[in-house]
């Protein structure tokens, strides 16, 4: 499915450029969601349906909704858009584009090497993913579990507030 791959790659790149150049944070987040969806299609075209589904469920469906939630709560108005506009002057593009050109040059050199091979294509089923997660990489899974537990404990501590005496109508 090379055609699917190229179409979704182009969409992902365009959407990511839009993320950087938008002034309104909500619009930028929306383009980021489009970019994630395009990346999910790329995964699918490379034969990784499980990774594609997780990309949509976790990144596009949960994390981005939380980002949007926080952005809406902050209620950033015209002020932030103006600030963004000030930050996005042409001269700030010089540094990043130099670095990006270096990366592009490296990639072109790699692609032009004579011993280039075709992209390997093999469908990875959810069963294979879980076998390697809970077999080969069990230590990594457990370490990530520890890290998340720490995060939850920290969040619970920060979120804890003093006990208040509520009116009897407001008590649950």
């Amino acid at each position: 499915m090379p055609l699917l791959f190229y179409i979704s790659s182009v969409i992902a790149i365009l959407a990511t450029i839009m993320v950087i150049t938008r002034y309104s944070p909500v619009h930028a987040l929306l383009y980021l969601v489009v970019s994630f969806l395009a990346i999910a299609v790329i995964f699918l075209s490379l034969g990784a349906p499980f990774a594609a589904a997780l990309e949509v469920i976790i990144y596009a469906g949960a994390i981005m909704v939380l980002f949007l939630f926080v952005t809406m709560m902050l209620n950033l108005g015209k002020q932030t858009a103006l600030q963004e506009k000030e930050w996005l002057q042409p001269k700030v593009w010089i540094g990043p584009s130099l670095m990006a050109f270096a990366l592009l040059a490296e990639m072109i050199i790699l692609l032009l090497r004579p011993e280039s091979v075709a992209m390997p294509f093999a469908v990875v089923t959810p069963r294979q993913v879980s076998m390697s997660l809970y077999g080969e990489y069990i230590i990594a899974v457990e370490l990530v579990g520890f890290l998340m537990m720490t995060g939850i404990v920290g969040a619970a501590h920060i979120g804890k507030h003093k006990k208040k005496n509520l009116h009897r109508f407001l008590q649950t």
Partner: protein
Amino acid sequence: MTVMQHIWIVLGVLFVFLNIAAGLIWVERRLLALWQDRLGPNRAGPLGLFIVLADTLKLFFKEDWIPPFADKLVFIVAPAIVVASVLMGLAVIPFAPGIVVADLNVGLLFFLAMSSLGAYSIVLGGWASNNKYSLLGALRGASQMIAYEVFMGLSLMGVVMLSGSFNLTTIVTAQQHVWFVVTQPVGFIIFFIAGIAETHRLPFDIPEAESELIAGFHAEYSGMKFGMFFIGEYLGISLISAMTVTMFFGGWLGPGFLPPVVWFFLKTFVFIALFILLRASLPRPRYDQLLGYGWKILLPLVLVNLLVTGAIALWLRS
């Protein structure tokens, strides 16, 4: 299967479900009336069935007004997202042996992904309206849908453990001898509760809560854009009912005197009626009660359910 057959299946699913969604306008009003000891719409056409036509025509011919203070593009896109995501979710449901739009090996995950994308519709619709009540509704919708997505996914994992697959056709055929509602009763109850919260139907219609927030996230919408939210909600009910039947009630399986498709739709209609009965009988909880109930009761319960299911599955296999 030939390409033409695929196209016919896609068109058939679209036709049937869009008609069910429209027909639910009448079904819901008649059933509500029945349970509240009234008659409901009974004048236009036989049994009042033409109320569907009248309602649709009304929605089409109303002024489609975009408020000048709204974020125009996002305002227009938001109602389309809910309909599109629900219709995509319908693509993986097997209606009968061979009648399925896309028999994916990650079908269940695809359904969960599409239902999580539906949250954007509420969030964006409420934000783009640039209205305090809409924004409140959108904030409530976002937190409610994120919270209940977690239990929705986890409650289905017990079924995945027992059937050993994410593919919905395999899950249905694994219920040949006993339906998963018998072996996974807790999973079924939590999935159904999470499904009500996902479609933000009463009693969990907190994002729109007309008595507190006017109409919540769609307060500024009119005409067919409001109609899209409306149809999206009914499609969501049908999708969750169809999913409940597929996961827990044996999908198309049933005694042989009726064809499989008929069994599937009969079972689905029972759950649609249950959705409407819940609307007719339960009061709306307060916002913090809903979230507290989710995180403090349902989440531990679903984790315990997973633990017990896993232990039993291991014990049976050894």
